[in-house]
């Protein structure tokens, strides 16, 4: 795996080498009272600053830090450049996020004439740096999980390769919380059983792990702590979800305002779905109340939706449901689309004209055509060229 070091910070510096390029303590993220750190320079990390930390707290830990917004466009462009260089070195490159890429070198053994994997990795790292300016760390191993864990050990700007046969021993050096796929809820369960480190879990027989955590998760854990990860690197791996969320400058109480914000999020999710020629059968709405209680509701439809109107019809009723259960001031609102179906899978034709059967929520061909036409207009005149009037009523003030 190739992972760009403090990617957003690096890009911000590359964009402004004379200014930000010289700032040792640089934070990228929201600078408002409620903003959070997206990425911190290594010097700032040494002072205890972490990503996802509220910016206000980061500033207390590191008062000399300079905070700049995420250079989104530049990040996407640099990420593409990195991917291009990587794809010249590996037959399969799978982006795992904007700054992480899995490379499958299977089949290149003869081409590399038995070159040591560490040397190959180092060569790739140097070339990415030379051609894009971006420093990457490379972790290597026989499986995805090992490469991912190794890249942590390689950072910053280094290489770490786990030789074949040493996977289990390598894993023993980690805590369970370091494993990808172990979240806070699972971690709490593990702790209740007295399992903190990988070594703790390796000592437990598989049958017990299955009994404690269930068939699927028990087996999964048994395999992972031994460095076994059957998943393959797949460049075509499908997107499983598309989502959009917003933290507000000030908590929002007014239902009408929330609905308008929701519509705007639905438009963003819809645009991403259509750009990828996908439809979503499941729409979810997430709310974080002022007291940080996070709640979520979802609904699965027989037919996938791709238009802003279709997504909003489902999302609006979910939002009402969540608000009816607890009517607190809202800090964050999000919309997610999962259960994604390719548009090319075809459209189920309808027996009755939807207008006559009062199928209010259902997306029609007309809706789809209109959405595509609107995308076309936005493609030509810019994103803000066309938006639902309701969104325009509330001039954007959210962070």
């Amino acid at each position: 795996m190739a992972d760009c070091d403090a990617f957003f910070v690096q890009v911000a510096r590359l964009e402004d080498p004379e200014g930000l390029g010289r700032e040792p303590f640089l934070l990228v993220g929201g600078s408002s009272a409620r903003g959070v750190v997206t990425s911190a320079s290594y010097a700032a990390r040494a002072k205890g600053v972490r990503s996802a930390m509220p910016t206000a707290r980061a500033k207390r830990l590191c008062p000399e830090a300079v905070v700049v917004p995420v250079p989104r466009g530049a990040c996407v462009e640099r990420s593409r450049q990195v991917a291009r260089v990587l794809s010249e070195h590996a037959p399969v490159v799978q982006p795992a996020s904007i700054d992480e890429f899995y490379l499958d070198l299977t089949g290149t053994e003869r081409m590399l004439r038995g070159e040591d994997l560490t040397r190959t990795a180092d060569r790739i790292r140097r070339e990415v740096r030379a051609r894009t300016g971006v420093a990457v760390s490379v972790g290597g191993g026989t499986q995805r999980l090992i490469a991912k864990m190794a890249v942590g050990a390689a950072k910053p700007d280094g290489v770490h390769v786990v030789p074949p046969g040493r996977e289990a021993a390598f894993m023993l050096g980690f805590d369970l919380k370091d494993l990808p796929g172990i979240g806070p809820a699972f971690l709490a369960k593990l702790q209740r059983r007295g399992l903190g480190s990988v070594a703790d879990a390796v000592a437990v027989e598989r049958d017990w792990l299955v009994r404690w955590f269930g068939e699927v998760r028990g087996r999964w854990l048994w395999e992972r702590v031994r460095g076994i990860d059957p998943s393959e690197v797949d460049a075509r791996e499908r997107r499983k979800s598309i989502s959009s969320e917003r933290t507000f400058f000030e908590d929002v109480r007014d239902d009408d305002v929330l609905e308008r914000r929701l519509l705007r999020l639905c438009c963003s999710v819809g645009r991403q779905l259509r750009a990828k020629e996908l439809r979503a059968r499941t729409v979810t709405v997430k709310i974080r109340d002022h007291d940080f209680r996070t709640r979520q509701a979802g609904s699965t439809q027989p037919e996938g939706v791709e238009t802003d109107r279709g997504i909003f019809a489902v999302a609006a009723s979910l939002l009402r449901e969540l608000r009816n259960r607890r009517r607190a001031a809202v800090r964050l609102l999000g919309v997610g689309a999962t259960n994604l179906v390719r548009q090319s899978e075809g459209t189920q034709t309808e027996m009755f004209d939807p207008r006559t059967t009062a199928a209010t929520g259902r997306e029609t061909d007309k809706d789809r055509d209109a959405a595509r036409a609107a995308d076309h207009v936005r493609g030509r005149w810019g994103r803000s060229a066309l938006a639902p009037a309701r969104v325009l009523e509330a001039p954007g003030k959210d962070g």
Partner: protein
Amino acid sequence: MDLTITRQNLHRALSAVTACLPAKTSLPVLSNILVECVDGGVRISGTDLDLWLRTTVPADVKTPGSVTVPGKKLEELAREMREAPVSMQLQGDQLNIHCGRSQFKVNGLPAEEFPALPEIDFGQGWSVVAKELHELIQKTAFAVSDEESRPVLMGVLWELREDEMRMVATNGHRLARMAVKAGSGGAEGKDFIVPPLALSHVQRLSDPEDEVEAAAGGNHLGFRLGATEVYTRLIEGTYPNYEQVIPKDNDRVARTTREDLARAVRRMGVMTSDQTHKIKLSFAAEQVRMNVTTPDLGEAHDELDVEYAGEPLEIAFNAVYLQEVLKVMGSEEVKMAFKTPERAATIEPGDGDSDYLCLVMPLRLVD
């Protein structure tokens, strides 16, 4: 209340009635069943307020009375009791039960708290043979919608005419319609939109040879099946004009053995996507090719001999809709008819001796 009843009779009545009790309810009395002494027996009722089930079984009643007690608990007790007469006495709101050397005291609620049954006058109704009703239900009810945004489609349309009755169900993507030559026998024509759950209880609780009486009252429909009654709330609204969507000019006709086609579609169905279940059928002279391509899973291809003489045709469907229709069709042969890849396809029994028709809307393919 003081009565004696056989364990079997008690259990038979309870398992008939408790099937309609809601799994969760905010109204405690709905978890209970109403036990009433009537002439020569005991009558047991249960409801979830949309559906009522009531049955009467013979019992030896010494002192009349009535009470409501937790239905599922009483049913479990009746199932586990030894094979011996069961005696029940009421003490306040508590039901004391003795069976052999077993003794149970079950806390109940006063009978007055139990919701009243809909008032229906069976004298104003009609009667049909259960066998015919069963067939109508079995061949149509599967096609109802489960989408709450269109409540009328969640019910089965029951059209009652003087010399014929029909049932129709659809979810807007597939439709099933069946008619039998047995009508109301003189009563005026009526249409009802009936929740399929009520129909499945009617099917479960009646023998094919039984005579079923039906009658409507207010917004409810009642069925009398011997000593058992089923009452249901009707779905309000206007059923869409389904006749209008049934194509009359589908002239590309394919005939084949139902079982072979059903097996092939099931085989292909394994490889379809969980989301759309898309299967593509290509009809050409005397054969149909079936193709499934699911990007993350793989492909499936199959061929079947059919009688087909029309122009070559490529059409895609949700395989589940085809499977469901072919499963209930019942005939040895099926006749499928098409017009174009975007228009409704009809599927009928090949023998043509029953008035049964299914309609499936295709998946429109993207160019």
